[in-house]
């Protein structure tokens, strides 16, 4: 199947791995900032957090897909044209050109959908709260817990790629999350002063 082959090729695409980690990280920290900010503002409403987070996630998804598609297509076409010059042959309609097109689309989707995936995971406790399964207070703590897990797993993936200690890499990523939380809390304290 062409799609299976394209996905298999994507696994070997370094750039797809980078986009996945970078954008999942961006998405997780952005939503963490929203969750903490809404919570400390005193408005413990799951609906407000869900809509704010989804709004941010949609913006990140569209920006990611659009931006990544444009630049990836430009870069890959440049490489293809250079190859055509070396071969002195037209590579239009060949498997090489088809692979360039399919990989460009898949890489752009990875770029755009990674933050969306992280967002959906982080706001799932608030969705559960909206459905009446848990209270908003618990949803906040579960959500922060999920952020910690996601950041740790992303860090572990980075450690795996670099063949370094995965636990250490995971812990470093979690530190970034702590930095976001502390910064938002400080901003709130400054407002009170």
């Amino acid at each position, binding site marked *: 199947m062409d799609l299976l082959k394209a996905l298999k090729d994507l696994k070997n695409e370094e750039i797809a791995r980078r986009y996945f980690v970078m954008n999942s990280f961006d998405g997780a920290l952005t939503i963490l900032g929203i969750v903490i900010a809404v919570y400390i503002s005193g408005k413990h409403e799951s609906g407000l957090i869900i809509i704010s987070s989804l709004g941010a996630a949609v913006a990140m998804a569209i920006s990611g897909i659009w931006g990544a598609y444009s630049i990836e297509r430009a870069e890959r076409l440049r490489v293809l044209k*250079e*190859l055509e010059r*070396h*071969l002195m*042959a037209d590579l239009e309609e060949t*498997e090489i050109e088809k692979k360039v097109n399919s990989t460009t689309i898949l890489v752009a989707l990875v770029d755009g959908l990674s933050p969306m995936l992280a967002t959906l995971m982080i706001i799932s406790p608030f969705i559960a709260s909206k459905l009446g399964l848990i209270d908003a207070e618990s949803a906040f703590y579960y959500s922060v817990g999920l952020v910690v897990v996601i950041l740790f797993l992303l860090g572990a993936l980075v450690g795996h790629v670099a063949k370094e200690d995965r636990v250490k890499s995971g812990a470093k990523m979690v530190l970034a999350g702590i930095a976001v939380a502390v910064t938002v809390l400080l901003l709130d304290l400054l407002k009170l002063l």
Partner: protein
Amino acid sequence: MEDYKNVMDEMTGKQTKVPVKILVLDVLKPHKPNILDFGKRICTEKSIEAATISVYAVDEKTESLKIVLEGRDIDFDRIKDILEDQGGVIHSMDKVVLGRKTLSEAANLSELGKY
């Protein structure tokens, strides 16, 4: 029947089909796909029974190959399409073995041994 067919072909100016047993091509291709995947793709063509591929030159973006193809009746047009589909460019056809005579095993090995 065979004689009648040959006479008819002569009269109509049509060449009798001569099976191609061995074909040696000089091909330039990009680094990807590698020669393993490149060769597997060539061998999907049913007229090919065996393929030997050697890389004899490499530069920044491309590599030059010697491809020895064996079969009972190699379909060159199909091979050309497959090579071009993978970004390959045929620089030259260096050797061809044709005919209805069954090649001896010794003859086959001597052709392959040069590459």
